[in-house]
């Protein structure tokens, strides 16, 4: 048995590897530049002044903190035209533009010089000042506006890849530049952009795109860092550090630690409740098959089974926390808005929270409860028809003993199978329920993360749920062996 558990745990690793890889791939492919997103959030909330120099420093710092200055994986499969240092263009949009240009032209040297000249031009434009001497206010305003457009366009140019768009951007910049610029320097920079652009589009080497090449990066990469940490900013997944949330900038593990309690409470409690109710129900229905109780409960359970849980949640809210009909239960939260009274003991807290958790608990429980009862009933019916049950009756065993000791024990296998699926279903389903009832758990956090495009958070919950699922499978496998001695994992 121990050996089996050991084997099983060893088998965890490939699965876990795939789960983490999947999460990581999703996170890397998420649109937009996370650092830029964090910066805009910071400037909007006033955490950060929009001064560009400190902004760039901040950006670099956050890039380092999030590990975005590293290559993505241990190796990369690419083509002959792609350099192994492409990841060093940190800005996600600019990186993407460079990759697309490579896809179009396949000549890295020219693309690089084009990118450099664009960057150079952008820097020059950003440092430009308006010579305001001898101008009236109107002229100054118009000039400032033109200058701002120039800076914006030259920044946008860096993340353009479509030839038509590049042409039109260059044309716009050129038209702005002629009246504004007095400096020869910026003009030369712009000419350089044109020259490098022409070089890029004329000297293409597309054939290089069709020859595969593999670059190895070693352990200094984002995935390795995400898994094992870099010892400086990140501890790694192995030490339960899931990274930093984009929206709150707090470590995700801290957020989850404070949120997991309610999620686990609802999951576990609903599992216990579901098993406690559905097993006797299913057994009773199976014993008096086709009787009144069986038919009634079957119909009811079938209806429950087909009801979507958010619908039930709303119906309950309509009925029980509706000021127009009957407002007995609070509609949201798990405790009063002002929190528990200070001197409240544990039991008092439970008493206060009880009305809050009734409706969510019903919603969590009913569907798995319907499913379980049907499973128990089916398995029991199959077993009660077997010969050994008749034998047990014939040799004069009491009814109870026949049912629970013989038939039920053999019907447990499908019930246990269901158990393995309860955890992921509970946490996955809780995204909807927690957002309806505003329960401060992981599901609500995921819901908010989706709204705020906070991908590390989504991936963290996904990974955690994957781990819980694996544990659920392990437990159910062990339970199989406990219930059925014929199953020998040796």
């Amino acid at each position, binding site marked *: 048995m121990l050996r089996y558990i050991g084997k099983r745990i060893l088998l965890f690793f*490939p*699965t876990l590897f*795939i*789960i983490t890889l*999947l*999460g990581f791939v*999703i996170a890397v*492919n*998420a*649109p937009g530049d996370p650092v830029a997103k964090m910066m805009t959030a910071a400037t909007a909330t006033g955490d950060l002044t929009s001064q560009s120099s400190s902004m760039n420093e901040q950006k670099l710092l956050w890039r380092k903190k999030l590990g975005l200055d590293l290559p993505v994986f241990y190796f990369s*499969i690419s*083509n002959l035209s792609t350099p192994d240092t492409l990841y060093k263009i940190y800005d996600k949009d600019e990186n993407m533009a460079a*990759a*697309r240009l490579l*896809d179009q032209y396949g000549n890295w040297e020219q693309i690089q010089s084009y990118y450099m000249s664009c960057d150079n031009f952008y820097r020059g434009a950003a440092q430009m000042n308006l010579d305001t001497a001898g101008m009236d206010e109107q002229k100054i305003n118009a000039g400032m506006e033109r200058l701002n457009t120039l800076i914006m366009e030259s920044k946008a140019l860096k993340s353009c890849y479509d030839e038509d768009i590049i042409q039109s951007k260059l044309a716009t910049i050129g038209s702005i530049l002629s009246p504004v610029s007095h400096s020869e320097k910026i003009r030369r920079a712009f000419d350089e952009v044109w020259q490098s652009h022409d070089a890029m589009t004329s000297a293409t080497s597309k054939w290089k*795109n*069709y020859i*595969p090449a593999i670059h190895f990066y070693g352990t200094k990469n984002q995935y390795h860092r995400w898994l094992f940490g870099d010892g400086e900013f990140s501890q790694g997944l192995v030490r339960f550090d899931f990274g930093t949330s984009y929206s709150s900038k707090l470590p995700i593990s801290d957020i989850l630690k404070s949120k997991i309690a309610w999620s686990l409470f609802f999951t576990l409690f609903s599992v216990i409740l579901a098993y406690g109710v559905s097993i006797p129900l299913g057994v009773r229905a199976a014993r008096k098959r086709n009787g009144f109780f069986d038919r009634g409960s079957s119909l009811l359970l*079938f*209806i429950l*089974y*087909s*009801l*979507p849980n*958010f*619908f039930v949640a*709303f*119906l309950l*809210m*309509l009925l029980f*926390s*509706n000021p*127009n009909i009957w407002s007995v239960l609070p*509609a949201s939260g798990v405790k009063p808005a002002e929190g528990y009274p200070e001197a409240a003991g544990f039991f008092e807290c439970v008493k206060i929270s009880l009305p809050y958790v009734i409706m969510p608990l019903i919603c969590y429980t009913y569907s798995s409860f319907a499913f379980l009862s049907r499973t128990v009933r089916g398995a029991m019916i199959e077993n009660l028809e077997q010969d050994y049950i008749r034998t047990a009756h014939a040799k004069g065993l009491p009814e109870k003993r026949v049912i629970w000791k013989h038939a039920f024990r053999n019907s447990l296998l499908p019930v246990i199978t269901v158990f393995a699926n309860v955890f*992921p*279903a509970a*946490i*996955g*389903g809780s*995204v*909807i329920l927690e*957002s*309806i009832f505003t329960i401060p758990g992981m599901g609500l956090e*995921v*819901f908010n993360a*989706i*709204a705020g*495009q906070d*991908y590390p958070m*989504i*991936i963290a*919950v*996904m990974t955690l*749920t*994957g781990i819980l*699922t*694996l544990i659920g*499978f392990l437990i159910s496998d062990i339970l199989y062996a406990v219930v059925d001695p014929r199953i020998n994992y040796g």
Partner: protein
Amino acid sequence: MFKFLSFRHKAHSIVAETENKQFSFREYSWKQFKKNKPAYWSLVLLGIWIVLAFLAPVLANEKPLYCIYKSNKLYPAFSFKKTYELTDANGENKEVINLATFDWKRADYDKVVWPWCAYSPGNSDVFNISVSPGGEQVFSKINEELIQSPKKFRHRLGTGKDGGDVFAGLMHGIRYSLFIGILSMLIASATGITLGALAGYFGDSGMKTKRGIFIFCIVGVFFGWYYGFFTRSFALKDAFESGGITFILQLLFSFGILVAVTGLFMLPGKYLSRFSFFRNTINVPLDSIISRLIEIINSLPLFLVILSIAAISRPSFTTLVLIIGFSNWTSIARLTRAELLKVSRLEYIQAARSLGLQNRRIIFRHALPNAIGPALIAIAFGIAGAILTESGLSFIGVGVPPETVTWGKILSEARESTASWWLVVFPGLAIFLTVTMYNLIGEGLRDALDPKLKR
């Protein structure tokens, strides 16, 4: 048990001959299915649903079905034109009206036939925001005088917070739920049945190949992937974001390249087979590979995976269908595998093998028809599950494009106004009815295809 399995195949069994007519398992199970009244009526309801889905653009529409306007006979609801040119009695004096922007409800008709529901989903009726089905509804006449809504223009099932008609939304929502449920399960069953059949039929030792071909096949798959998917990654990405049929076409094109390149690479493998090292036959452990794959996918938290992919990709129906489809094939594959393990040990398959039939033919013509039952049941339940997943996703607000109205989306509008019970009850009932329908069909199939439960 055995008897029935041979029934299923069209072989002339002794029993069938004594019944004096050829026994068809299909006919038998259809008879059994029809005896199960709830399941039968669910199938009828599914038929009605499909008809409604096709007729929805006509049945719930802003434009009249038929009208005589300024002595012109018009059929606006059936028209694909963008504009109408009106003529007066003399055949002169042309007036051009734009079908999309014309104010149909307030026009002065000589005669008019309105559709069942005179509203389109998504269009908002600003005078009736969040009105209840039985409550007061107003209608603005052409002189901007507000009157009690005439019966034709009442919102039968109320409106949402933007004044969108719930009834029209429900009618059009049937399409989306049918579309997503059936198409995603089509993908899932194609994947699941194929992989499950391969795993069950060949097992770990059934598929033998020469070492040279095996090695070159793997190398070929890498290059096929490289040319099919890697070098085309930007084309695929753009297609994925634009969604729709283009993505599927691009994907098929990529798969085509993959297959072609792999085939090309297998040729030198065949040539190399004259050397003894490459000629040795080896087993391809197909069953182990596929079972492990199923195990891994089963331990993924699928709802969260779907959620994260749907949150990242710009939502479109095609991507949603693909995501749900490719994540739900495992149960179908498992059942098909188990069934084929059983069936491929039967004598008629052995006979087919010894006759020298091709494996492909044996699997698809002889083995699969006898093993499809459990998969069919799983597919019926799977459609119900897919519809629930879709409505859950659109309830949260990911997955479907913002301008489309689905049942889950109507329901989610109720979050902002708990007093609007009609936003909860009607779409909820629609989802419930559809899910129940598929579940009942699944149950009916289970009973009908199980020979032990003869009615």
